[in-house]
C-alpha cells in the first residue's frame, strides 16, 4: 500500500511503526475519552480540551492553592517513592536471599509472609501514618507496596538457581561467601529486577493513597485529592496524567534494566 513495504528486520522501519502505532493508539484513547465525556455529560469527566487548558495553566502558574509548582508536587512524591523503594530494597533483597537459601528460615517465615501479603498496602496507610509520623508514614506505605513483590521474587529467584551452578562454584574452590556473592546474587538479579518492576507499579498506587491522608508538603496524591475535594475535575485529570507518566518512566527504567540483564544472561 502506498508503494511502501514494511520490513520487520529494518530497525528504522520497526521504530517508525512503533511511533505510528503509539500515536494512533493514544489519539484513539483521546477520542474515546472525549466522546464518552460528552455522552456522560458531568463535570466530573471533563473533556480533553478542558484538561489541556488546566495542564497548561498548572505548569505555567503552579498550583496556587498550595503555592507549589507541579514540579514541586512531583518532586515531593518522587522523594517518598524513592525513600520507600530504597528501604524496601535494602531489607527485602538480603532477607529474600537468606530465606531462599535457608530451608529453616523459609519454613519459619512463610506463615508470617502468607498472612501479611494479602493485606492491601493501601490499607496500611492510616496505620503507618499515625503510628509513625507524617514524614515517615507515607514512605512506609510505599515500602510495604514494593517490599512483598520484591521479597517474593527474590526468594523465588534463589529457589530457581540451578543447583549445578552452586556445585560447579564449590568444585572450583568457592567458599560459602563466594558462592553467595558470585553465584546466588547474580543468578537472582533478574528476579530481583522483576520484583522491582511489579513493585514500582504498586508503589505509585500507594503513594497516592498515602498522600491523601498525610499530605505534608504536597505531592501528586495530595494534589489529586485536594482538587477532587474542590470539584476541580480538569485539575484532577492533569494529576492523574502526571502520575501515569511518572509511573511509565520509573517502571520503564527498571524494565529496560531488567531486559538488558536478562539478555546478557541469555534468559530470552
Amino acid at each position, binding site marked *: 500500500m502506498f508503494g511502501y513495504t514494511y520490513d520487520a528486520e529494518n530497525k528504522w522501519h520497526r521504530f517508525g511503526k512503533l511511533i505510528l502505532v503509539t500515536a494512533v493508539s493514544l489519539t484513539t484513547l483521546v477520542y474515546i475519552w472525549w466522546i464518552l465525556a460528552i455522552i456522560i455529560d458531568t463535570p466530573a469527566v471533563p473533556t480533553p480540551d478542558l484538561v489541556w487548558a488546566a495542564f497548561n495553566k498548572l505548569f505555567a502558574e503552579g498550583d496556587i492553592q498550595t503555592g507549589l509548582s507541579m514540579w514541586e508536587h512531583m518532586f515531593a512524591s518522587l522523594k517518598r517513592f524513592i525513600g520507600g523503594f530504597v528501604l524496601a530494597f535494602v531489607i527485602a533483597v538480603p532477607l529474600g536471599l537468606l530465606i531462599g537459601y535457608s530451608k529453616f528460615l523459609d519454613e519459619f517465615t512463610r506463615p508470617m509472609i502468607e498472612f501479611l501479603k494479602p493485606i492491601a498496602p493501601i490499607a496500611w496507610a492510616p496505620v503507618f501514618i499515625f503510628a509513625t509520623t507524617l514524614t515517615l508514614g507515607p514512605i512506609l506505605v510505599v515500602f510495604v507496596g514494593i517490599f512483598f513483590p520484591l521479597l517474593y521474587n527474590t526468594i523465588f529467584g534463589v529457589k530457581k538457581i540451578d543447583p549445578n551452578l552452586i*556445585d*560447579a562454584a*564449590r*568444585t*572450583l574452590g568457592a567458599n560459602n561467601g563466594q558462592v553467595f556473592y*558470585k*553465584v546466588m546474587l547474580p*543468578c537472582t538479579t533478574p528476579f530481583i529486577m522483576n520484583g522491582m518492576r511489579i513493585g514500582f507499579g504498586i508503589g505509585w498506587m500507594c503513594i497516592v493513597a498515602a498522600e491523601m491522608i498525610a499530605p505534608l508538603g504536597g505531592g501528586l496524591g495530595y494534589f489529586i485529592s485536594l482538587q477532587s475535594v474542590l470539584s476541580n475535575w480538569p485539575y484532577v485529570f492533569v494529576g492523574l496524567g502526571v502520575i501515569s507518566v511518572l509511573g511509565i518512566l520509573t517502571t520503564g527504567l527498571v524494565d529496560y534494566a531488567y531486559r538488558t540483564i536478562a539478555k546478557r*544472561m541469555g534468559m530470552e
Partner: protein
Amino acid sequence: MSYIELNNIRKVFRKDDRETLAIDNISLSVDKEELVSILGPSGCGKTTILRMIAGLTDPTSGEVLVDGETVDGPGSDRGMVFQDFALFPWRSVRKNVEFGLEVKGISKKDITERVDRYLNLVGLENFADARVHELSGGMKQRVGIARAMVNGPKVVLMDEPFGALDAQTRNIMQAGLIRILEKTDQTIVFVTHSVDEALYLSDRIVILTKRPAKIKEIIEIPWPRPRDRASPEFTALRKRILTELEKENVMN
C-alpha cells in the same frame, strides 16, 4: 601407588522415610594420569560416585582418599565437568574460565596468562569475550573443561560431559579430549552410559551392576590412543560389554 582410593563405599538415600541402598560396598583405586570410565545402567549411582569424589555428597560409610587425603567437602583440587555444562550465564567465556583462579585470589596478570593458555588448549581463543548463550553445545562444554582444568586439579571428574551433545559433536569432543590429554597427563574419572565412548577414551572401564551398585567387572584397555572404532577387537569388546550391560537392564 593408587592416587584415588574408594574404600568400602556404601550410600543409602532416604526419601519420604524410605531408605534405598544406592551403592553397596564399592572399592576402587585409580592411578595417577589414568582415565577411568564408570559405565552402568542409568540410575545405578555412577554420578553419586563421582559426587562423592568431588565432596559434594558424603558416603554413608567408607571413605574416599585423593592423593592420600580423606575427602571432606568440595575443593579446587578436584575439578568437575557437568553434563548440562553448569556455566555461569552472566559471565563471558573468559570470566567463566577465570572463576576458580579468581576465588583463589590469584593476581590478575597470572590469571590472564593461565586462562589464555587453557582457552588455546580447548580452541576457544577467539571466543574469549563471547557470552555463554551465544555458544553451541560443544563450545559450551569446552569452556566447562577449560574451567575445570585451569585450576590444575589432581583429578577432573566428568559427569557424562558429552551426553547432551549430538553424535557428531560428541565424536569431535572425544577426539579433542584425547588431544588435550596428550598435552596435560590429567587424571580423569569419566562417567558415561556410552560403551563406545568409554572404549574410545579409557585406560580402564569399571562396569557397575544395577542398583544397588556393585562393581561387576573392571576391563583394562591396553590399546594406544587414538583408537580405531572400526577395528575388530574394538567392535568385539564393545559387543561383549553391551551383552554384559544388557543383563543389568532394569527392565529385565
